[in-house]
């Protein structure tokens, strides 16, 4: 793919270096064309699209329920957050009320997703900057969360567990014990990671003062999530526009002023702690029994037993799986706080069983756009730190 870089006047002997698209530090297939004067970055241009799979176009050819599986595959490190954004959007379109029990389970799993995603971020970011061992520890803990997901949804990664109107399945007996065991062991391990990195001289040299973005620039460029909050702006969708009963949970939105890579590191660690607190609260709130589906016969597939014994349920079952359901014509935009920032889902219905248009506002698509602001004027080695600190996932950038 051709891309031109204009040489600014007075740049001296500038050279253009391609980082990626095949490079582990780009976290997928990202190409950054960097123009260098010696070791100093004059310009950086991200080039995306290598993983474009036309998810939005595919959604238009599927029914509302079928499209859920595509949302897993965008941000494959936090599938449940994507499921949640899409399901909430369609539920808003339909005007569905989801039972509290399902809402709390959604919150619990969404926060576990945030912890898992931040762990992958921490591990890969550390490995980018030369700290190998953190990666191994982070993936050990993440595996515990993956096991919880597998227990609940039957899948480690592509869970598709949240469905329109509720959840896919009743969680198995004893799943909360597993969550409790994780909550028991994890905080001490988090402290271990901190002793590896927080006061580590090399880590501090590589991150302090690197990749600074001012709060004004961050807002103007639409940056969201931990990257925005590390610049001192307390925008968190969970607090600003609560969804799925987040208003019933007490948690802090950590912010920092330094706006550099180190601040974003400390901020994400603090977010993990807040998420642990939310998970703990959610465990206390989830009733042992109760409905996990909205009372909407034409939308939520009937229980297997009812389908086998009741004529009406069988008709609904047949209609849902052959034709789908038709929301009223209209358009909604639903925001959720994914681990990377504001995940927006814009769904337009024309009154047919297939969405007229689905658009995913993925947080790192927008955050990556600010990469040139972070790394212009810094050393070429810091570009790796800047890419890592944005926590990009190319699957959701290219969709």
């Amino acid at each position, binding site marked *: *793919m051709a891309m031109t870089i204009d040489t600014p006047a007075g740049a001296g002997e500038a050279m253009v270096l391609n980082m990626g698209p095949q490079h582990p530090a780009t976290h997928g297939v990202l190409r950054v064309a960097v123009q260098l004067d010696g070791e100093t970055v004059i310009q950086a241009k991200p080039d995306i699209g290598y993983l474009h799979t036309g998810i939005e176009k595919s959604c238009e050819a599927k029914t509302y329920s079928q499209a859920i599986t595509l949302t897993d595959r965008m941000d494959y490190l936090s599938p449940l957050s994507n499921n949640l954004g899409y399901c909430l959007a369609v539920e808003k*379109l339909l005007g569905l009320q989801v039972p509290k029990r399902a809402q709390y389970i959604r919150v619990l799993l969404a926060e576990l997703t945030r912890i898992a995603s931040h762990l992958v971020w921490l591990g890969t970011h550390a490995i980018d900057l030369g700290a190998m061992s953190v990666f191994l520890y982070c993936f050990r803990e993440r595996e515990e969360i993956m096991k919880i997901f597998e227990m609940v949804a039957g899948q480690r990664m592509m869970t598709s567990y949240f469905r329109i109107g509720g959840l896919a399945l009743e969680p198995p007996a004893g799943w909360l014990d597993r969550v409790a065991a994780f909550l028991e062991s994890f905080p001490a391990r988090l402290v271990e990671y901190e002793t590896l990195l927080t006061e580590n001289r090399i880590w501090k040299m590589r991150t302090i003062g690197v990749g600074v973005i001012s709060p004004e620039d961050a807002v103007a*460029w639409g940056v969201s999530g931990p990257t925005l909050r590390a610049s001192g702006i307390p925008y968190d969708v969970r607090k600003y526009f609560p969804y799925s009963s987040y208003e019933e949970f007490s948690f802090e939105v950590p912010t920092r002023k330094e706006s550099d890579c180190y601040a974003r590191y400390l901020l994400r660690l603090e977010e993990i702690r807040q998420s642990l607190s939310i998970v703990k609260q959610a465990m206390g709130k989830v009733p042992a029994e109760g409905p996990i589906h909205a009372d909407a016969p034409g939308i939520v597939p009937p229980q297997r037993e009812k389908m086998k014994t009741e004529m009406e349920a069988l008709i609904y079952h047949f209609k849902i799986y052959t034709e789908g359901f038709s929301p009223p*014509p*209209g*358009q909604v*935009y639903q925001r959720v706080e994914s681990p990377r920032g504001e995940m*927006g889902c814009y769904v337009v219905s024309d009154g047919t069983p297939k969405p007229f*248009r689905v658009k995913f506002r993925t947080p790192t698509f927008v955050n990556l*756009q600010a990469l040139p602001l972070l790394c212009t004027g810094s050393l070429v080695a810091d570009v790796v730190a800047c890419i890592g600190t944005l926590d990009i996932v190319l699957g959701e950038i290219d969709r």
Partner: protein
Amino acid sequence: MAETVETQVHPVAARLAAWDSAAISGTETFRGELTVTVPREQLTRVAGFLRHDPELEFDFLSDLTATDHFPAEPRFAVIYHMLSIRHRHVLNLRTWTEGANPSVASATSIWPTANWHEREVFDLFGIRFEGHPDLTRLLLPLDWEGHPLRKDYPTEGPR
């Protein structure tokens, strides 16, 4: 669209109407979301007011995208989803453009973040954004033919 509420006036809509009611061609509320439609010629003026008016201050452009209503005319709607960090309110702004040579004014001078969003819409819908600093394809290869998110583009691809 369904559930159009005209009697209950949204504070943001009221502020816009008080400023210049001629600049707005319609407002609608669906599921509690306010969508304001503006004529294409007024877009830059209205967007600038929304961004800079101290009572509204929509400083965060979440998303910018388009919909294709082929074969209806005007064919394309361009829609802006924004929010105000200070006032904690949201707004959807929409404008329409016709199918032959579709174009709207670029919002990059008001919200720099519109840059990639507009390139993506240009790439996938073929809508031109006048005044955009670098209107080139973003996701697809530069020599790609056609605009996949248009309704007359087959889902299975061109071949």
